[in-house]
């Protein structure tokens, strides 16, 4: 019958309005409006004791004036900004620079003062990554033979000037290193989760030998 589809459509929209599981997964980034129950959970106390202790905050949160920070849920595989670079592992081979489709990695090396023997390792003088032009394809990470360069997990790197978007060697050295598990099965095997704030030491991140086909299959393949 004509017109029945219109009525059915109204029914579907009403269903989506009413059923909570139909709601879009909306994350109130960066701040979430917290209910008293949320607040109690955050402060590790039972809801009623929390409400009894903080009546003012409870009233505020009922009206919707209390915010707590919320991060967007990501997978540890997320290819993000803040490259994690380990100078202990880097030999300055510049594979990453060579493999980058945009050529935004700049590496200048000199002879090492520590390892005097030539060819053993180089001192890196410049290691710039211009993330203003980076498209986070991850080819540099894939190319690194010594697992020295890893993708990061951040995504809030807005700057006022383009020049600030260039990550130089000092920044890379001093940064808190939260490598993404992208293309790094060994980190997955260790249960590394950069999103919840796990940092990784340079000793942890490397593959000391190439994993065998069986190893990979055991770990990765379900079927």
């Amino acid at each position, binding site marked *: *019958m*004509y017109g029945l589809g219109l009525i059915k*459509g109204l029914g579907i929209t009403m269903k989506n309005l009413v059923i909570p599981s139909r709601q*879009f997964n909306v994350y109130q980034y960066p701040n979430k409006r917290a209910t008293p129950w949320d607040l109690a959970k955050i402060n590790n106390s039972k809801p009623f004791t929390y409400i009894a202790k903080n009546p003012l905050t409870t009233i505020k949160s009922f009206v919707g004036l209390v915010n707590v920070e919320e991060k967007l849920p990501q997978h540890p595989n997320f290819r993000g900004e803040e490259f994690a670079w380990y100078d202990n592992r880097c030999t300055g081979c510049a594979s990453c620079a060579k493999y980058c489709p945009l050529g935004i990695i700049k590496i200048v090396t000199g002879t090492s003062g520590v390892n005097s023997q030539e060819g053993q390792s180089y001192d890196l003088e410049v290691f710039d990554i211009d993330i203003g032009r980076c498209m986070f394809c991850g080819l540099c990470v894939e190319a690194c033979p010594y697992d020295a360069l890893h993708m990061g997990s951040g995504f809030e790197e807005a700057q006022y000037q383009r020049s600030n978007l260039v990550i130089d060697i000092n920044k890379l050295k001093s940064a808190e290193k939260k490598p993404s598990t992208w293309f790094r099965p060994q980190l997955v095997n260790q249960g590394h989760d950069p999103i919840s704030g796990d940092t990784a030491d340079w000793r942890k991140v490397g593959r000391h030998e190439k994993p065998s086909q069986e190893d990979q299959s055991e770990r990765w393949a379900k079927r």
Partner: protein
Amino acid sequence: MYTSFYQLIDFHSFYDMYYKIFESLGLSSSASWMSYLAAGGSLSFLAINLLVLATAFYTWFERRTIARFQVRRGPNRNGPFGLGQPFADVIKLIMKEDTIPTEADKPVFTIAPIALLAPTLLIITVIPIDDASFLATLNIGILFIVGITSVNSIAIFMAGWGSRNKYAILGSMRGAAMLISYEIPMALGITSVLLISGSLAMTEIVAKQDIWFIVVMPMGFFVFMAAATAEMSRTPFDQIEAESELGSGYNTEFSGIKFAILFLAEFMAPIVTSAVVTTLFLGGSQGFDFLPGQAWFVLKMFVVIFILLWIRSTWPRLRIDQIMGFAWKILMELGFVNIFLIAIEVAVLMDPVTGLLTSQDLLIMAAINWVFTILTLVFLANLLGKRNYDRPDPVPSPLANMQPKGEK
């Protein structure tokens, strides 16, 4: 308590108050007309500001509700539950640069928003929010509403023409054609109400609704609602500013405070329309005693608004020729049929001496009308359904012949 408060905001009390003030100032000779003006001014000021405030919160309500339908959250950042959002919007719009296109017809362009807002504001004057009217007891109340809304089409035309934009002109051409066409079914829907109530005054119409008119004549309600939806250009009739086709229609070139006024008028329309619908079909301020009449009125308005939003968030829009066809080919006929039916019923059932209809009469009419309405709608649906649903099974075209490589 509420009655006394309501009587405080009343023309007479204002008049008396100002009269005393002017008398005490020693202006007793001219106190009469001065207090008349002052009372009217104060009352209008209150009414307009109340309406504007209501519209501001209505925008919030609309955005939140539609967001919920669309499984989103809606504005929830400014203030508790996002209630500060309308004020943020207004402040933003006022702060913005008010650009006028170089080629625009400047006076027309400037007056258009005001011309659109004024009629909508005027409608609220005759709507009885409780037993007494809020502002004026015009005995032509509903006729005044029909007349004053027709100014809208001119205002939309002024906006479109004044901005010298092709999209705007297209939008306003559509608008003028559509608004004029839908005035006829709307008037027909109103006429069927008038046949029973026997009066043009809104208070009388409310008083006559022993049985709500939506029960008595569902067809009239359907016709009026459809026409009113088109009159305020909401989905599925929002061709005037079909944002996917015309950008923004007649208000494409407007910015700043002019845009704010245009949108004020646009968002005021659902409030005003739902108030009119409540008065005509939902028994106005009638209700049970535990709540004041005003509260019932607002509650019914909210129900109407919610249904409008529900429809808006579900249905797409019709094409312009389909909209016009709907007005002239379906809605007008339904309106006429409804009027004939009601007229016959009224002529048969009405007490010839007193000219009144008892509630029993209304119930009899309701029974006849419901059966008739359902039959008509089913008939219409089947008539239309035959054309659109008969569709053969797909037949593959003989021109292409898809075979995997190697097979012959």
